[in-house]
């Protein structure tokens, strides 16, 4: 039967864990290798240590540098522990506070962008001319590096008095709305001719077809788009914090870290950004499972 050993052998958990373990080992080796030059230079400059240092000295010191080229994983974890758990979440020294600043902008933008994307998709599906004229542009807009206009949006909105959360949310919304539109158009047009014919024989009008057939059918396409969109929203909010040197947020921490050479700070902000993005995607996935179960799906 499905014993634990069998599940371990056939499932994803074991290989994933093995690869993560290898990656962490490589990370440690990389940290020793990349940091060793600076430490050796230090040793050579020191009268007492010159020629007398051992490999274990080197390993110990490369893994506990103040501003390493590549910090060791445990240094990053310690920094995260210090800036997440030991400081009150409301203080601006807490990384959790910065993560919340970024996440709140991303979520507001995600909400706006998803609504806009859905509305546009509904319009495109119902107005033939719009489909023919607008859809190619929606697709073409995917090929444009939209993120490049982030600084402009921030500064221009800032010059007319929009500061803080909203400009970042606009960037996130802008990034979100394209995948949602594309997914929703696909979803709303996914009912087959057979199904459309059937519902027409019930003499359903356009509104009823939309409510009872197109809208429920679109959900299978909506959620994968929303997952892409929420990940993009986090990226948008982080990049939105770069150009003006925002005071708070994960992007601001990255920028400050890169100005002052605080590599451990950069890495911990990076890890937390990944966590925020991963959790947001997971949350959408969770909402998807609940919705699909409510709607009678098998997922």
């Amino acid at each position, binding site marked *: 039967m499905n014993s634990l050993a069998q599940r371990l052998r056939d499932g994803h958990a074991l290989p994933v864990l093995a690869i993560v373990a290898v990656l962490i080992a490589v990370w440690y080796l990389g940290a020793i290798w990349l940091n060793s030059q600076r430490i050796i230079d230090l040793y050579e400059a020191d009268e007492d240590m010159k020629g007398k240092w051992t490999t274990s000295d080197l390993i110990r010191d490369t893994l506990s540098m103040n501003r390493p080229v590549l910090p060791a994983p445990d240094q990053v974890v310690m920094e995260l522990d210090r800036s997440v758990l030991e400081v009150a979440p409301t203080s601006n020294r807490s990384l959790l506070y910065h993560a919340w600043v970024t996440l709140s902008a991303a979520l507001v933008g995600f909400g706006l962008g998803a609504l806009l994307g859905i509305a546009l998709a509904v319009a495109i599906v119902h107005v033939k001319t719009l489909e023919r*004229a607008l859809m190619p542009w929606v697709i073409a807009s995917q090929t444009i590096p939209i993120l490049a206009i982030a600084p*402009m949006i921030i500064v221009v909105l800032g010059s007319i008095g929009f500061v803080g959360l909203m400009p970042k949310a606009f960037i996130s919304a802008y990034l979100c709305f394209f995948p949602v539109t594309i997914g929703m158009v696909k979803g709303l047009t996914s009912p087959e001719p057979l199904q459309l014919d059937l519902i027409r024989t019930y003499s359903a009008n356009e509104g009823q077809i939309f409510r009872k057939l197109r809208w429920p059918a679109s959900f299978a396409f909506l959620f994968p788009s929303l997952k892409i969109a929420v990940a993009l929203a986090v990226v948008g909010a982080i990049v939105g914090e770069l150009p003006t040197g925002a005071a708070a947020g994960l992007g601001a921490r990255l920028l400050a870290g890169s100005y002052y050479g605080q590599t451990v700070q950069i890495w911990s902000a990076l890890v937390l950004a990944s966590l925020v*993005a991963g959790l947001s995607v997971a949350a959408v996935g969770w909402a998807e499972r609940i919705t699909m179960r409510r709607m009678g799906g098998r997922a």
Partner: protein
Amino acid sequence: MKFRRGDIVLAVTVLAGAAALFLPLGGVGLWPRADMLLWIAALIVAALPALDYLARPIAAFLALLGAVMAGAALYGLIGAGARGVHAYGLWLGVIVLVVLSWRAMALSAALAAAYKSNLLHLAAPILLGVWTIFMWQVLTVGFDIPRVLLPPPSDIAASMVASSRDLALDFVQTFIRAMIPGYVIGCGAGFIVGVLVDRVPFLQRGLLPLGNLVSALPIVAVAPIMVMWFGFDWQSKAAVVVIMTFFPMLVSTIAGLAALSRMELDLMRTYAATYGQTLWKARLQAAMPFIFNALKINSTLALIGAIVAEFFGTPVVGMGFRISTEVGRMNISMVWATIVVAAVAGSAAYGALALMERIVTFWHPSLRKVA
């Protein structure tokens, strides 16, 4: 006589267009004579398709011609100095133009559907694009919107011409030097690793979920680290691009190599094909749609990576550098000019890849013409 809804809308529009001739223009007393004549001619031409005995292509052409003439007349009106919130005549004219352009788009879209012509299919989107730029120009100039907020397209075009040398240097730095090497290395490495782990199901099972996870992460945030490691010049940007493009390619290659069904694999085995032959002649071919999908996604990601990485430090050239410095100097039209270059480059790269995909995966059902 029976009235259709479209005809009524058109009649109201033409009447409104006539009324626009008598409304105040904000700064200009009357319509300049040439523009007035053009406007009247436009209304007449645009109204002609309501006549039933015109063939459809002619009706669509007349609607289009009317919209273009109306646009030209309004442009002349703005050039003569009509602007401001109180230029009711101008704004009524703009509303009339919206209806006329919509009609032209609808007619040309219907025509494209009726004749199944690729060229005609381009007409409606091109019309919408031109129309959007025109409206942008009319609204920004007509409402005197500050240049720092949103420059009119004419300003952007002027910036592009005036700073074409800078734009070209930026393009070379960001696109040719940073993005293309990074893109080639990242996609190549992702592909090679994907093919290599294909023989080790254990690695495959582990890499697929991890790759999917990493693809969702804000990888562009590694830019400051790469700038520290590889310096300010293009090498650090290329490194960011490598990291950004590696994982989507890896995941797609693994998924693509698994795309072939049992049946085809069995067929290859009956031919006594070796692993290498099966890989080369069957599985890699079947993986091509997945791989091209990753190549297309990556082309956008790579450009984003190369530009955003420049926000963290760069020599005094490059698209990201140009955007961040010109934003700082409030020279917004130059920022837009850079964005136009990035957009054209991004779309061209994507288009080239799509074209290559059509050639390589000609067998794919989505590309075959239905007989």
